């Protein structure tokens, strides 16, 4: 329902009321402290790709949210609204305009956050604004669809349990065939395992090879692990649509399953937003302190090599490689050195990308942008910055630790005709595995285990 300036629409009123419930002191600090110095401007890939258009500037975008805060919650804005650019929203059309800013002009990459002299965390209150709009049903259609799938089916791609199990079993057969070991398993719901391994639904739908590669590494390491039959989706659209309730429910499903299986450690496959959501934000959203260890599979794979549990031969991965830091991994979780160390162990020729680590540019598919078809032209235009970064490395393959980045990078590489491949660390580690002798050893272990269990049952 739309409204005139004199009366506020139902949705606009809901957004304003909800804002008061979602604000915390960290966010209020960020909303109150901006001095409009403009130092954040050049940190945004949207700005760099759209020179001369100030509407992409982080501070400009932030002010579209800030004006509501100032008008309704900060008394300087109540007393002198025009003087401090305070303002309100009255119509649904205005909410849709705000939607185009918070979803369509920002990937919540946090590059402006780490470049703000005042410590203003725009991405955090941009996420809050997304949540306010989603609360009243104003969001890109793709975001609505994916969030619904995650609420109702339990994973963001609507994978049914039967399809999930079937895909795991298919990969188990592939594992047995590749290892020439009919006893090789991908266990499901095995209690008391050292590791509970959770994945991105994209791996089931589009990239089952990464499940097989992970299984090969676990097999080679002789790991006692399991995949859960439910609560296996470590991605979380709550991060993208700003819905803490969804975030808490999705992360809670994973935590509950680990608890139910009495798993000792949760290992999260390579996914930036999945890692951030499950490892970092999930406990906050779910309001639950997790009682088990949780780590990225990058750290798990690295520790296998360092502990001598697996052997790798980097000559199996010829060619030149560069590494793209996922924003969520690098800028929100500090996962910058482990992937580089792992990469140096499995490839011969590595070219660093500049800038890198927490200063890296977004793949432009972050913040759920890949699910927002209406903003694709703008996204690909802004991807020019990433394309220039990639081509400057002269590498043939870009490696990343994020399924979302794989899609974002693949899209821009095609658009800008860069002719590069995209891969993940799990693929490179699996390819570099030296499995001589492991198969025989594992078969022996399996036979011994069988003997023990048959003896116990007699």
């Amino acid at each position, binding site marked *: 329902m739309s409204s005139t300036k004199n009366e506020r629409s139902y949705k606009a009123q809901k957004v304003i009321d909800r804002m008061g419930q979602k604000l915390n002191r960290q966010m209020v600090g960020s909303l109150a402290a901006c001095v409009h110095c403009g130092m954040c401007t050049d940190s945004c890939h949207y700005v760099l790709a759209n020179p001369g258009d100030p509407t992409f500037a982080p501070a400009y975008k932030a002010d579209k949210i800030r004006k509501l805060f100032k008008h309704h919650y900060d008394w300087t804005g109540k007393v002198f609204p025009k003087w401090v*650019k305070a303002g309100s929203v009255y119509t649904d059309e205005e909410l849709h305009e705000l939607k185009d800013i918070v979803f369509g002009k920002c990937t919540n990459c946090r590059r402006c956050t780490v470049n703000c002299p005042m410590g203003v965390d725009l991405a955090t209150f941009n996420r809050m604004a997304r949540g306010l709009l989603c609360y009243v049903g104003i969001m890109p259609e793709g975001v609505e669809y994916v969030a619904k799938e995650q609420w109702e089916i339990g994973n963001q791609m609507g994978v049914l349990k039967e399809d999930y199990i079937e895909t795991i079993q298919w990969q188990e057969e592939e594992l047995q065939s590749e290892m020439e070991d009919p006893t090789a398993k991908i266990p499901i719901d095995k209690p008391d395992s050292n590791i509970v391994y959770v994945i991105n639904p994209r791996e089931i739908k589009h990239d089952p090879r990464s499940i097989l590669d992970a299984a090969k590494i676990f097999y080679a390491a002789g790991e006692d692990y399991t995949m859960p039959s439910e609560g296996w989706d470590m991605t979380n659209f709550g991060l993208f649509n700003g819905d803490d309730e969804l975030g808490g429910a999705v992360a809670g499903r994973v935590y509950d399953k680990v608890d139910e299986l009495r798993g000792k450690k949760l290992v999260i496959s390579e996914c930036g937003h999945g890692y951030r959501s499950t490892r970092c934000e999930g406990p*906050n959203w779910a309001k639950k302190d*997790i009682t088990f260890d949780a780590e990225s599979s990058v750290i798990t794979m690295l520790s296998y090599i360092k502990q001598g549990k697996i052997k790798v031969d980097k000559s199996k991965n010829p060619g030149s490689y560069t590494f793209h830091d996922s924003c969520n991994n690098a800028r929100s979780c500090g996962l910058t050195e482990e992937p580089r160390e792992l990469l140096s162990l499995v490839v011969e020729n590595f070219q660093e990308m500049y800038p890198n680590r927490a200063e890296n540019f977004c793949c432009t598919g972050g913040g759920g942008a890949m699910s927002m078809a209406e903003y694709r032209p703008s996204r690909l235009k802004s991807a020019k910055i990433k394309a220039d970064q990639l081509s400057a490395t002269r590498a043939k393959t870009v490696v990343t630790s994020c399924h979302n980045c794989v899609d974002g990078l693949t899209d821009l590489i095609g658009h800008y005709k860069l002719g590069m491949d995209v891969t993940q660390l799990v693929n490179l580690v699996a390819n570099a595995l030296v499995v001589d002798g492991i198969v025989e050893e594992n078969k022996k272990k399996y036979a011994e285990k069988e003997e023990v269990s048959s003896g116990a049952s007699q």
Partner: protein
Amino acid sequence: MSNLLHFSEHTLQEVALVLMATVYFLRIRWFLKWPLGKERQPATGLGDTNPKKGERYSLGLIAKPWAMESTRSKPFMYAQFVVFHLGVIASISLSFIIPYGPGLLKSAAFVSVIQVLVGAAFIVGVMRIIRRISNPYIRAISSPDDHFSLILLTSWFAFAFLAAPNDISGGEGTMLTYFLLTAFFLMYVPFSKISHYLYYPFTRTYLGRHFGRRGVFPLRRKPAYQVSK
């Protein structure tokens, strides 16, 4: 010295300071009433950082222009920031020195130091006004308060420069204007963006704690440890 100038140097400044302190107190109280977001996640990162270290790093960034890309890539902007804020400190100090320690201003060298600081800050202020008007990005984000605050401070620097010798033999106009501007500045600051320094310790501490816990701060630009053989 006329009664008006004496009033401006003493009573008016004291009233303005009390008003500023009162509004600051209310503002901090308002700010602290917002609930502090709780962080439940177990710490991540390489183990060489933690929330406390993140806080210290975050607060210290003000003095590390090389640490952030935004300041590293714009050294001239950072230099402007330093000069401008040194000018603010010098001008505020002058407003206390003239009424309470005028003896210090008998030193020509001391007066010169003050004048160099506020004079340089005045030049930076003018440059900032030009930038705020001419740069389309800055113009688009500027509020009337941004423009007014900058013009107010730049004018204040100019009068501080003229008032620094503390000489009223040629008339009290300059000195009177400086103190009237100072009093207005003190009363206006809590309502304007100039009060950003009130939030600075909070925003930087919270962000530093958050990024320290997550292993992001201190920011890394080189390999953090030896790659395994």
